[in-house]
């Protein structure tokens, strides 16, 4: 049975909050547990729906009388909107509603801004919106909106925003946040070092570019509203829409069944959802508002660009004596909320080092707001730190792997407690390097201008632990099938399948005896946002708990039905078995559940708290082999081998998918992806998939994911941790280090675009170095 404790807390402002501690005690599936479904490769439950096109995405919603909506965006990076007139747009036949600063309700947005704000702070900021009978009319109507702007001085990058006399983007200036951390004495550590690294490294702005854009369909019924939204958090959308529109949470229903990716950009509620709701209210019709690729590129998040000055020191035997990093990251025009971009985190935790100092400054710029992007901060930090480590290894004449192992730690030094799995990272090093053949001589092509090299990079990640609260319900139907009901969402990762496997395992059912339900705030219990690689680790234990309780009730019922003591009974493959009796005398579950119809077994499980004496982290190591053509600067990734510690692997198939997808994004980040903003106008020049270059299938080599699969029994009773974000973290530095190994050129700026690589090779040739 669940425990449930409530504690009253009173804040300084007198506000009372109740803190809840709950959970259903469960014994962990330990390493020896004989699991029949969990750990076996399973294709996605919704696979057929997806490939046949019947899966419903946000775009697919079609309601009677539905209108379509679009947004007019600011052409200026910083401007005062002096006049906006939507009269002509509203008068266009087929237009049913318009909204702009002229007539929008006063709704707060971001820290100090409004849904429609008179100050526009990035090119792409929302100016007005229109709902009409089709998308062509919307476009025509948007062209009829008269908007007059008074352009203001602007800053599009960190340097410009921090320059003396820079125009303040917000009242308090352009520094959004400053965070520092220190342990030991880095200056003393650097003095004690035999070798040092001291460089400024930069990473670029990357756009999430989910295949499915952001968007929603909104329909009102009386005072209540239903929102079909492409989101990582149906419950956050519910809460935010309610708050912004002055409704109660129960008046808002949010539905999301399938999603074509979010990668962090859909973990917060953006303006278009509330705009669509207002347009729907005004028109009295359902309204669909999907962003186009330009909107995706401009207004719904990006990975913050960073500038990191990194100093490292090590003694001759490779022991790190100091890590000192000063980080600036451009968060764009607003702090958008959601998972923070903690670039400093990797420096504090990955390696054993007594002297660490980190300083992280968030800087406002007149560009689209940044938001969490798959392992925010860690991807950026890994490029810098792992480049620095590679350089130290070269200086020391040490194997880069040996240097990393020399500085191994099983403790979270910043929290001063051990990791829940102190050997997780060590296992990753071992698995990845053995499978890769690290240390073996690689074969060089006959042509001297084609050079091959290998690189390695490691990481830890602060996410993947999961957290309370999170709930699941189990319903055993008279026909012997189970409905598993949660309020979580499948953001394209295979959540449905993995969680259904957990349920089937605990119940003792086959996977096809389980039907999984998610993605509807009205029909399922609460689940948090799917971010921080948390969903499996948050909801998995809740499902186990609900299923365990349902199984106990089922066995009690079976005991009565079969007139056997409950201790002799068990469920396996959907059949109730009596200990010692032959297999063929097993009783189908339906015989028991049917015999008590219409009564049903219905249970709830709650996610319990995490342990307080260990730090739950995920880890990974990747090795890459590349070939560089020194004549043309072409970089070809030949192979990537990955090993990631995500605790127990629930579904190897979808874990492989996450790794393949993450490495693919990492290759894009390493080589081609970069948002380009024109300095003169502040306009994004590649707000499309033509000039913003994501990798194509031809750019992606064979990616091998070596399963680590050590259950993390201290983390939670499933032993499983998240794998969503980690596989992107070490890819870019592994590739950059491999490029160095191939041609001896070190890159301190991402991406390693063709122009950068050619420039560097040409510069080296001019210096008379061999090609």
């Amino acid at each position, binding site marked *: 049975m669940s425990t449930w404790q409530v504690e009253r807390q009173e804040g300084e402002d007198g506000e009372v909050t109740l803190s809840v501690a709950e959970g259903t005690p469960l014994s962990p599936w330990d390493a020896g547990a004989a699991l029949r479904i969990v750990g076996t490769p399973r294709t996605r439950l919704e696979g057929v729906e997806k490939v046949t096109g019947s899966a419903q995405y946000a775009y697919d919603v079609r309601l009677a009388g539905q209108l379509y909506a679009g947004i007019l965006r600011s052409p200026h990076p910083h401007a005062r909107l002096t006049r906006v007139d939507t009269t002509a747009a509203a008068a266009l036949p087929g237009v049913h509603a318009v909204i702009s600063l002229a007539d929008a309700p006063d709704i707060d947005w971001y820290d100090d801004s409004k849904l429609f704000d008179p100050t526009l702070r990035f090119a792409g900021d929302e100016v007005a919106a229109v709902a009409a009978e089709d998308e062509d009319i919307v476009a025509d109507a948007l062209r009829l909106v008269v908007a007059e702007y008074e352009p203001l001085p602007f800053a599009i990058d960190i340097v410009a925003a921090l320059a003396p006399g820079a125009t303040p983007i917000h009242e308090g200036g352009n520094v959004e946040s400053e965070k520092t951390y220190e342990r030991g004495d880095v200056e003393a550590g650097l003095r004690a070092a035999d070798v040092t690294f001291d460089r400024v490294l930069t990473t670029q702005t990357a756009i999430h570019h989910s295949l499915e854009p952001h968007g929603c369909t909104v329909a009102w019924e009386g005072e209540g509203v239903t929102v079909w939204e492409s989101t990582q958090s149906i419950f956050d959308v519910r809460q935010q829409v309610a708050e912004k529109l002055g409704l109660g949470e129960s008046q808002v229903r949010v539905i999301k069944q399938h999603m074509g990716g979010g990668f962090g950009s859909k973990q917060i509620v953006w303006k278009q959802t509330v705009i669509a709701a207002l347009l729907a209210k005004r028109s009295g019709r359902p309204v669909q508002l999907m962003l186009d690729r330009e909107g995706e590129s401009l207004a719904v998040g990006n990975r913050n660009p960073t500038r990191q000055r990194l100093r490292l020191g090590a003694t001759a035997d490779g022991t790190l004596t100091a890590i000192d990093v000063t980080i600036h990251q451009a968060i764009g025009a607003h702090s958008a909320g959601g998972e923070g971009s903690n670039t400093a985190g990797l420096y504090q935790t990955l390696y054993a080092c007594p002297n660490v100092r980190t300083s992280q400054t968030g800087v406002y710029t007149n560009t689209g707001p940044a938001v969490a992007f798959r392992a925010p901060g860690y991807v950026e930090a890994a490029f810098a730190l792992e480049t620095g480590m590679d350089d130290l290894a070269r200086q020391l004449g040490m194997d880069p792997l040996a240097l990393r192992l020399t500085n191994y730690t099983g403790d979270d030094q910043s929290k001063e407690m051990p990791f829940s799995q102190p050997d997780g990272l060590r296992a990753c090093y071992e698995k990845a390097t053995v499978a890769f053949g690290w240390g073996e001589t690689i074969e060089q092509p006959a042509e001297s201008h084609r050079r091959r090299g290998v690189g390695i990079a490691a990481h830890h990640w602060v996410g993947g632990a999961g957290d309370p609260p999170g709930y699941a319900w189990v319903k055993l139907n008279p026909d012997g099938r189970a409905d598993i009901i949660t309020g979580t969402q499948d953001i394209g990762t295979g959540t449905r399948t993995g969680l259904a496997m957990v349920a089937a395992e605990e119940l003792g059912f086959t996977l096809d005896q389980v039907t999984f339900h998610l993605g509807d705030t009205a029909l399922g219990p609460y689940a948090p946002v799917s971010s921080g690689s948390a969903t499996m680790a948050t909801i998995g234990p809740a499902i186990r708990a609900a299923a365990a309780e349902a199984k106990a009730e089922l066995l009690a019922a079976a005991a009565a039905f079969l007139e056997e003591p409950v201790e002799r009974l068990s469920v396996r493959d959907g059949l109730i078995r009596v200990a010692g009796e032959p297999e063929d005398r097993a009783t189908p579950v339906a015989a028991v559940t049917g015999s008590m119809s219409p009564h049903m077994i219905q249970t709830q499980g709650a996610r319990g708290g995490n342990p307080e004496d260990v730090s739950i982290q995920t880890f990974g190591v990747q090795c890459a082999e590349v070939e560089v053509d020194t004549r043309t600067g072409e970089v070809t990734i030949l192979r990537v081998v990955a090993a990631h510690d995500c605790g127990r692997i629930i579904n190897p198939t979808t874990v492989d998918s996450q790794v393949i997808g993450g490495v693919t994004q990492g290759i894009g980040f390493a080589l081609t992806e970069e948002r380009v903003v024109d300095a*003169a106008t502040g306009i994004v020049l590649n707000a499309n998939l033509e000039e913003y270059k994501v990798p*194509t299938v031809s*750019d992606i080599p064979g990616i091998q994911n070596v399963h680590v699969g050590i259950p993390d029994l201290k983390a939670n009773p499933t032993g499983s941790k998240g794998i969503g974000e980690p596989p992107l973290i070490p890819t870019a530095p592994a590739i950059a280090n491999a490029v160095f190994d191939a041609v001896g050129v070190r890159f301190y700026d991402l991406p390693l675009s*063709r122009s950068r690589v*050619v420039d560097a*090779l040409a510069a080296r*040739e001019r210096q008379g170095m061999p090609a």
Partner: protein
Amino acid sequence: MTMRTFAYAQPESLADVIAALGAAPSRDAVRPLAGGTDLLTLMKGDIVAPDRLLDLKRLTGLDDTVEIRDNELVLGALTTLTAIETGSLVGEHCPALAKAASLAATPQLRNRATLGGNLLQRPRCWYFREHLIPCWLKGGDACPAREGENGLHALFADSPCVAVHPSDLATVLLAMDATVTVRGDAGERAIAAGDFFVQPDEGRRRENTLGGDEVVLSVAIPLIPGRTSAYHKAMDRKAWAFALVSAACSFRLDGGVMRDVRVVLGGVAPIPWRSTAAEAALDGERPGADVFARAAAAALAGAEPLRHNGYKVHLARNLVIEALEEVTRA
């Protein structure tokens, strides 16, 4: 983005098209439509907004066939890039053109994109393609790329515009001495590729000399016995990208020395950029590393890199060498 309203017509004959083009108030008001892969993109981007499109695809008098006629390989204007990539005649007589087609765009686009449209496609300059930014080529006063993000721009520009010609095929066609046959009010004329592509100037903010009433009918490549060709293209990624720089080279060996040499660069000028200096360095010489290096250097001799595109000099030089090496091997 969504297009503005326009009329669509399917004229029955070439004469109707030519008449309609001739009667149009401006070149942009009435446009012929082939595969639409560039035209519709420009319309969606609000860069052009024609009132009327004249579909060329079902006309009598405009071909999508490839044939050998009078010792020339003749390709109809409606030939798709897929047909050029996979067709046996092109593969046999002009493999460099087949390769250029195969390296262009994506399979879906190549199924739709035509040769005529490919030669007439507009630059990919991101200032040109952004409707919020006025630019000289679009009728504005100045070229923002000159001082802006010009990593993809030209090394050689004798024009207020420093955009590069986007066509892979055009680069090869110039190296093959192709002619473009067009027809207008005044009848038919054959234009040497080198005269068809001309840098934009004040009086003609376009990259070619096609008349406002003219339609491209076909492209002809003379078949010169013993001549071989090669095309090398550098991209930002392995596929689905325009050339950063490309090189098309061709020559024939005559008693061991190179003759009828052509060296043409793509991605370095507003038009496919033929280097007669490089050709002169090669003509009459035996193929070899030294002479290739000299020719490559000559090809880039007058380059005027902008702030962000200096890498193209090094890249172009090496692509010329690679292409010459390949012609030698062929």
